[in-house]
């Protein structure tokens, strides 16, 4: 709690706690909507009735109840976890690279996770737990590849070139994944919907294997928030204040890999959430990474769950994959950031 008050003490022009409560309220409303609306037959009125009569055996609507409890609720939970994980991962990656464009989906982190899972499924892996750790290892590999590439010739100092390196890695990994899918029909069937990113058809059980590593990631994030904030003042200043920039950076990369790998294992690669969410959080609360992280917590789920609702409604009775939708929302934001008066330095 002291951590909380410490961080909150930084909220000045706009009170962080007010923003946080407001956004959490919004998230609660959106979560309710996600239980009410769907692509299928159970409309909002019927779902609302079913929700109100949950404990009432007389007016029990078994179909509506099934749709809400077995289809929509798991999607909602996974959306909450995936949104928060991707939002935080984006904020961390942007802080550590001091690059507002550093998004796990653009930097090849998600592609690394997806490629690793594709490989794992090709070689017969099937359990959800295995999938999570494989995805996290893949994410770490993707992260390290692109950062190593960025270290060459000082790409790291140029936001756009880092993104280019990431785009090349992503492209390469996507091609390799596609190659594997062409070569192996079984893997293709298993993975086709997953690889575009979606919350549909996920079970609550898919979420359980995420918790240990996401817990570790959350703990590390809390520990890393202060040194990361100091790193925003520059490497030398951070050393002068007694921090270890190299250790901090390495740990942040591990946390990003855990978060993105976990989210990707649960919902497939979902691009642009890690770009849009921290972007909005900074716009609302200023550049301090601690405030950004706090706001990413409700903002990430808001973006993912609302995108998921929209994905069910645009082409009924079918659904648009979530990854497609976030790309539709995120791409204009990316263009906006790049075209902005100047790239905000972090």
């Amino acid at each position, binding site marked *: 709690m002291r*951590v909380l008050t410490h961080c909150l003490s930084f909220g000045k022009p706009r009170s962080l706690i007010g923003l946080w409560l407001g956004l959490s309220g919004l998230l609660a409303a959106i979560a309710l909507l996600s239980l009410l609306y769907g692509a299928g037959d159970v409309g909002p009125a019927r779902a609302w009735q079913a929700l109100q009569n949950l404990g009432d055996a007389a007016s029990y609507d078994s179909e509506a109840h099934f749709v809400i409890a077995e289809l929509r609720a798991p999607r909602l939970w996974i959306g909450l976890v995936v949104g928060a994980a991707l939002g935080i991962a984006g904020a961390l990656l942007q802080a550590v690279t001091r690059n507002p464009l550093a998004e796990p989906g653009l930097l090849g982190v998600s592609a690394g996770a997806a490629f690793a899972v594709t490989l794992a499924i090709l070689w017969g892996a099937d359990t959800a737990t295995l999938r999570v750790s494989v995805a996290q290892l893949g994410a770490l590999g993707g992260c390290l590849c692109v950062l190593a590439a960025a270290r060459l010739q000082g790409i790291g100092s140029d936001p756009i070139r880092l993104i280019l390196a990431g785009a090349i890695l992503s492209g390469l990994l996507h091609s390799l994944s596609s190659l594997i899918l062409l070569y192996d029909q079984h893997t293709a069937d298993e993975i086709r919907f997953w690889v575009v990113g979606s919350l549909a058809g996920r079970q609550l059980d898919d979420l359980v294997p995420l918790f240990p590593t996401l817990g570790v990631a959350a703990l590390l994030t809390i520990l890393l928030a202060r040194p990361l904030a100091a790193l925003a003042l520059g490497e030398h200043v951070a050393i002068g204040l007694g921090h270890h920039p190299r250790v901090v950076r390495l740990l942040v990369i591990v946390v990003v890999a855990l978060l993105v790998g976990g989210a990707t294992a649960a919902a497939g690669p979902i691009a642009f959430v890690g770009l849009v969410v921290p972007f909005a959080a900074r716009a609302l609360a200023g550049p301090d990474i601690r405030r950004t992280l706090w706001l990413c917590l409700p903002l990430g789920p808001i973006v993912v769950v609302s995108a998921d609702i929209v994905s069910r409604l645009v082409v009924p009775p079918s659904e648009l994959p979530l990854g497609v939708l976030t790309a539709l929302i995120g791409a204009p934001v990316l263009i906006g950031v790049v075209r902005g008066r100047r790239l905000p330095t972090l």
Partner: protein
Amino acid sequence: MTHDAPACERDTAQPDTAPDMTAPDMATQGLSLAYGSVAVIEDLDLQLPAGQVTAIVGPNGCGKSTLLAGLSRLLKPRGGTVLLNGTDIRHQPTRQLAKRLALLPQQPHAPEALTVAELVRFGRHPHQSWLRQWSPEDKRIVDEALDMTGLTPLAQRPVDALSGGQRQRAWIAMAIAQQTATLLLDEPTSALDLGHQVEVYELIQSLAASGKTIVMVIHDLVSACRYADHLIAMHQGHVIAEGLPGETVTPELVRRLYGVECSLITDPVTGAPLLTNIRRTRDALDGSAT
């Protein structure tokens, strides 16, 4: 009895029990610094007087910023040691060192919208931990630092909305909040106009007067003479002169450092040495003529 006297002296000079309360002795022994394979400084022995303003001057590329990087542990020595209170700084955890030694790099950059108060609060980082985060004591020290730098009325302003001099004062306030006995500054007045330079130099002087040891790298020899108690002149990685500015600076030294001729007079107001009639040496003139 004769044995007691030096021991007493040593005790008063180095009360190790409370290192933060005393002015430290910073020194280097056989210090060698290099970037990659390029040796910049070799086998340097240096004493930095406690509680005074030391200015390190010299031409571009003479190694003065490298020396400061070595003193502040940003650059790992290739050989030799940097001693703070007689202890090798490499043997101290960086967070412990941050309680004794503050550091202000050249033209630091604050993130957009970061306020002065927020910046100064970062100075408390080495004193805080996960068990002890933000205390009333921290707040008091931050307020003091703001007060000392005259920034209390600007505390809620974004750093990037301040004037150059105010901005530099805000960074110095952060270093003050670190409550170290020693402060290292890399060109604290570069890119500042005259008024802002004076603003920063006077603050630095008042810090030394309050007991801090200040070591700064500066370009401007005239300001070094005016504001420093101790001058270290570097040329090609070597210290070629050091001491009181009034005794150290000579036309010969200026010629060796910068390749210019000058005349020296004593400033009638401050008593500091004053360079006048600065011009290129005859050698340089001949060189450019042919």
